[in-house]
């Protein structure tokens, strides 16, 4: 198989924290698997200490005086010869010119677009706007992060869209290798921007309150992440209203130190996701799952994929159904045998279908097939 010169260009300047998220990590793993080089091209937003995790990847800082995408187009114009495989992230109008310029200079080059979309967003893509339609057309491989979205896009776009979920790069999680179920505690964990409309944290809080009387053992609810002022108020109201529950609930605030966060994943038996929507499965799901947490999620697009259609987790479909979510939560809390069994099943499922190294192996063949097609045409 061939080795490719790769380049990842985000639609907006990269932040340090994004270096370890799907938009950069997957291209990085592809580089490790079948790349000759990887250039991350962005305007600087500050220091990039996480770059030290990405050995071999090169960061190209675009000039300050130009807007990000204008500078990126200029970069591609100058360096198209050095890019065999261009990674784009998100079906964003910002990419229209960039993709066109790249394809005009490198008709044999390959564009891989990772959609990072949910159905609602995908439904608003301006498909009748010719430059946007041309942009999608110029992408040789498009992947989305949820099977439900994939089926939707086949019907809407009538073009191949591959399913490549948001996965996990195991070398970044060495602690996950030796996690043991016996060391876990009765902890329900969630991680995210607490109180935002998307994360729908109140659902989890009140579902916990509804489930609480049914729990045979004490369970702690740990909410990790930055907190909106509205949610802080709601949380305080909640604690006033349910003083007996308050000692069992913990708001940790944002945890930037990955090692500390991983300790929570290690301890938690249940990871709860109460989101109204997600672009595929969130990174925190994959992280929790490799630590053997059983996942309870609302019916976001990726819910069937996250739980292997309910085999390794539970789905409460209705995003506003407090009682339904509480029912699933108490059922899980009251079934330690299931949680113990599922600890192993979940970890195996993740390794088999969410490991970025394996997913990169699949993308490699897809890229080879596209390269073959380009050569033939």
């Amino acid at each position, binding site marked *: 198989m061939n080795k490719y010169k790769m380049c990842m260009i985000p639609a907006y300047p990269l932040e340090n924290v994004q270096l370890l998220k799907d938009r950069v990590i997957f291209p990085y793993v592809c580089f490790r698997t079948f790349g000759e080089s990887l250039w991350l091209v962005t305007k600087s937003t500050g220091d990039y200490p996480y770059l030290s995790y990405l050995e071999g990847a090169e960061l190209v800082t675009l000039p300050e005086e130009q807007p990000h995408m204008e500078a990126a187009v200029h970069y591609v114009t100058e360096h198209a010869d050095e890019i065999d495989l261009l990674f784009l992230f998100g079906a964003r109008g910002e990419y229209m010119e960039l993709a066109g310029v790249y394809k005009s200079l490198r008709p044999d080059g390959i564009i891989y677009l990772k959609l990072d979309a949910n159905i609602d967003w995908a439904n608003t893509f301006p498909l009748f706007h010719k430059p946007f339609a041309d942009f999608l057309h110029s992408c040789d491989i498009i992947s989305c992060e949820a099977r439900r979205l994939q089926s939707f896009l086949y019907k809407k776009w009538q073009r*191949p869209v591959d399913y490549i979920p948001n996965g996990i790069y195991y070398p970044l999680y060495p602690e996950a290798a030796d996690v043991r179920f016996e060391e876990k505690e009765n902890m329900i964990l969630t991680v995210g921007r607490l109180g935002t409309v998307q994360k729908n944290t109140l659902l989890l809080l009140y579902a916990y309150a509804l489930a609480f009387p049914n729990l045979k053992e004490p369970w702690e609810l740990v909410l990790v992440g930055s907190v909106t002022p509205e949610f802080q108020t709601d949380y305080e109201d909640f604690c006033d209203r349910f003083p007996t529950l308050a000692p069992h609930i913990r708001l940790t605030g944002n945890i930037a130190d990955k090692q500390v966060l991983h300790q929570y994943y290690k301890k938690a038996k249940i990871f709860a996701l109460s989101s109204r929507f997600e672009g595929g499965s969130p990174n925190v799901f994959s992280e929790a799952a490799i630590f053997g947490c059983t996942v309870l999620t609302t019916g976001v697009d990726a819910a069937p994929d996250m739980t292997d259609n309910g085999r390794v987790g539970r789905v409460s479909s209705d995003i506003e159904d407090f009682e339904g979510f509480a029912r699933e939560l108490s059922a899980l809390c009251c079934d330690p045998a299931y949680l113990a069994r599922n600890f192993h099943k979940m970890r195996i499922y993740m390794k088999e279908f969410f490991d970025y190294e*394996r997913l990169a192996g699949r993308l490699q063949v897809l890229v080879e097939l596209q390269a073959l097609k380009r050569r033939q045409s």
Partner: protein
Amino acid sequence: MNLTITDTLITLEEGDETFVLFEKPDLPDYQNVTARPYLASYFTTGESIWMRLQTSMEVLADFCHEDPCYGCYALLFRRLYPLLLSSSQAKNVIAYGQPANCGAYKVFQNFMTFLQEGNALTALAQSSFSFQVLSEQSCHAFLYCLDTHPALTAVCDALRKIRPGGLFLLYTLQDAPPAQLIPLCEKGERDCLGPCTVYAFTVDEALSAFACANSSENLIFSRAEEILKRAGDLQNLVQAMLAGASLSEEVYSIAALILQQTEEILLSIYDYLENDALPVLTNALKEAVLNYYVGVSGQYEITTYREKLTQSSEAFFSAVNAEFIKES
């Protein structure tokens, strides 16, 4: 575009170009309605065909002078006119590509009714599916806006609805037809004024044969054959994989390539599929093949990959059979 109507000529000008749309025939009694050539039903208004044509063109200009297709409508009218006058038989004209309330359609219908009460102009919905309600060889003329649906199969489907000797009029605002339509357009007569072009065809045996060969029906049959051939090849490859044979890396790539081609073929006939999940099932099988390959080449535990490959292949092959070989 400027319309000029005189006692003997109707012309359309665009810049320096002048196009003669209609010339009054030099017939002794042409102005006399009772001497209307070939027509059996008469009107009492005393209005001659020429007079009605003049009025119709004025109305067309009023309705449509700001419509980019105005020139096309005038050129269509020019081509339609001899057909409408060719016999006293009622004419069935189909129009596709503009909304049903298009001003030009109203003008054509009005003129057609003047000539013969039974003449009908039917505006189809702007979907090529609307052709399917029409019988083969059922109309005398078909007006087709190429810019609405510039696909060879759809054009040929439309052609098949026209009676032998009937008229097919393709119109467009594009300088040139799409590449796949060039061989067809070269068979027609081309009228052009400004940005407007009309290709006119009289349906004969050769044109009918061309339409048959390139119609969606024929496309579906030939694509179905291609899919079944590929499905047969795939079945052998997948069986070899599931049998645990030691296969070279290439085998997986070939299987993925065949599946990718199958997916593309299925998507090319997507509108005609009974099971619209077939392309995504094909993709799922491709994914399962590649996961299996990654599992084998990485020397991972492959039990789950084998199960998924079995499930995906069963789903794919049974869907292909149900879609293309129902009787079995």
